[in-house]
């Protein structure tokens, strides 16, 4: 389930690069970052019910894409901005077309940004509860599953253990993400202009 989300936001955030001037669009994408999650979840629920979409894992995916995209955009746009435009022009000048320039020059140079964005979004999505709870319908998502299991005292120790594992996994993934982001900056010789950690 999560893997699909990752693919979507990866591609989506990359498109930012094609229209660099679209400030309004970026603002719209960034909006879920400042809105309380419960409002996003509730309004999505209302909209989905209004257009009679059955609640399922797919609606959860939709919600998660919505809230993780701002993070991906933030990380990837800093990766794209630190890219010297003349590198692209140089590849073009040396006879490559736009597609091979993207593949040979741009992609390898923003790869660390893409990896770190994948990991951060995975972590956020894994730990997210409200949207999963509201939009999952009959399907189960890890976070809401944990919540539901707390009703049974016998399951509590197992859930606590699972929670601990989740915290640890999150920390490890975030650290790896930051490691890749910093290494990418060092490799291209740029200045570190802030990250999430």
């Amino acid at each position, binding site marked *: 389930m999560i893997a699909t989300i990752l693919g979507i936001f990866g591609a989506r955030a990359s498109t930012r690069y094609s229209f660099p001037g679209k400030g309004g669009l970026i603002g719209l994408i960034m909006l879920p970052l400042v809105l309380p999650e419960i409002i996003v979840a509730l309004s999505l629920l209302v909209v989905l019910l209004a257009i009679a979409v059955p609640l399922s894992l797919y609606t959860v995916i939709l919600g998660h894409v919505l809230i993780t995209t701002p993070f991906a955009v933030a990380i990837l746009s800093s990766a794209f901005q630190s890219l010297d435009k003349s590198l692209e022009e140089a590849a073009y*000048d040396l*006879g490559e077309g736009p597609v091979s320039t993207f593949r040979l*020059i741009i992609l390898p*140079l923003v790869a660390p940004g893409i990896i770190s964005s994948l990991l951060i979004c995975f972590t956020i999505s894994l730990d997210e509860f409200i949207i999963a709870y509201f939009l999952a319908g009959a399907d189960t998502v890890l976070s809401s599953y944990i919540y539901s299991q707390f009703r049974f005292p016998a399951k509590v120790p197992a859930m606590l253990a699972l929670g601990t594992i989740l915290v640890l996994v999150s920390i490890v993934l975030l650290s790896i993400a930051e490691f890749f982001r910093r290494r990418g900056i060092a*490799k291209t010789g740029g200045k570190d202009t802030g990250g999430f950690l």
Partner: protein
Amino acid sequence: MSDKPTMIEFRDVHKYYGDYHALRGINGQIRAGEFFSLLGPSGCGKTTLLRTIAGFEGIDSGAVLIDGKDMARVPANERPTNMVFQSYAIFPHMSVGENVGFGLRRDPRSKAEKAKAVEEALEMVGLKGYGGRAAHALSGGQRQRVALARALILKPKVLLLDEPLSALDKKMREHMQVELIKLQRQVGITFVLVTHDQEEALVMSDRIAVMFEGEIAQLADPETLYRRPNSKKVAEFIGTMNFIPAQVISETGGQIEIEAKGLGRATLPADQCPAGRGDAPMVGLRPETLTLLYPGQTATDRSVDGVIDEVIYFGDMTYYDVYLGGTDVEVRLSMRNTPGRPILEVGSKVDVAWSPSALVLFR
């Protein structure tokens, strides 16, 4: 030299950035095999013009022709030009060899032949054996050489250089200037250099186009540009020039008689009098065309008396600021410090030799 064929031709090229008129009717030709410079202050459009040759900028009207072909519909990756960028644009995730060989990706030759071509290109720029190094660990001068090798390996018809030396320190810059000239002679490719450094342009170029505000002010060889600038602006931009208020006394059959304050009357042939622009008449003369007369020396042409106002010692040269002929006209002149030639003191009365043939009339 003038019998060389034309490599690049500009026909009334105009370019706008929104409301800003960046190129205002560029006309001119760059000949095959010459070292050509676009010289001007920042914002004059020289880099824009270079990028129109490379194909990174479109033009709004007019035409750019390379080797007789209109480039309007030819994208940058299909033009017979290669560029050395100001930032060098070395691909940081590749080795030096991969950078240099990048342009050969579409070349049908075998791997071994390509590797040989890369090695040859590196050798040409003095980086033999550097192929395996990581590109991001190179020094500024080495990056520049890699960028040169990468652009030259494709054997383009035209090599475009966008201020390639501006990021280097002074010693390195002077060294690279000479190397670039040698390299250009060796490969025989047309080089087009963009620079704001007039000294660099004079040293390196066969011909120079001086640009101001989107227009070519003068296109000539370095010596003409220096000795016979066609406007006060060009004269001020290139080297140092003294400007002395003057009056036009008479004009007869290509000869113009003038009276310059402090110097007196002189008759100038037409080639020393570029077309008038409606400015107040002035004559210009370079510091090295004026000579201080030491006791016992006499002027070969004309001389005028003066008083030294300032002495500026430069090691190999001394600059003197001198008031001419009891007037408030002050000129700067330069004297080579040869052995046995004393440095004169401020306030000394001196005679200054000059020659009407060194004058240029601006009006």
